[in-house]
């Protein structure tokens, strides 16, 4: 049964790591672009928002599956 917890931990950890890297790149580029072209900041924020929604789609599903493993399969 411990293997299920390890699997859930790997899913959650990988998802958090990938989201962190993705958001760090996205936020860094947003800051850089806003500094270069301040008048474009609102449009850039919109593009960032759309990309953020796509970026966390797979980790969100991963969270759901990990919770299922923890509370239903192992529970």
């Amino acid at each position, binding site marked *: 049964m411990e293997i299920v917890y390890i699997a859930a931990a790997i899913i959650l950890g990988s998802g958090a790591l990938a989201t962190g890297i993705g958001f760090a790149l996205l936020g860094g580029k947003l800051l850089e672009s806003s500094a270069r072209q301040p008048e474009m*900041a609102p449009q850039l924020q919109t593009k960032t928002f759309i990309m*953020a929604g796509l970026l966390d789609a797979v980790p969100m599903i991963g*969270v759901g599956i990990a919770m299922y493993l923890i509370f239903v399969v192992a529970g």
Partner: protein
Amino acid sequence: MTRSTKAIMRLPLLQWLVIEMAAVITLSLLWLFVSRLAGYSAFIGGLIFVIPNAYFAHRMYRYQGARQAPMMVGNMFRAEGVKLALTAVGFAAVFILMEPVHVPALLFTFAVMVVLGGALRFLIQPKRQL
């Protein structure tokens, strides 16, 4: 610099919310053909996506403009963290408190809503405030 490029964006939050809720209700009605429990589980699965996502959109657009860029990015990180935490808490609460639960309906509706949410942000983008 023209007025239109300086203008801040108006977030169609209500429009997104209405479309997402309509999709959740439609999917729940479709799952009702399987069983009443499946329809109920599908509705809960949709809500687990819609509520954290609405919070994320609200929090991300709290600050706008180039002067607020560091605050904007900081809020984006915090909003994402809270969104993931809310999703995890939502699933945990459903699996602990809701007995029995139709897991395929719950996860399928959630996955469909994740894909639909991304597509919706492409199709209905924030407009410039005049």
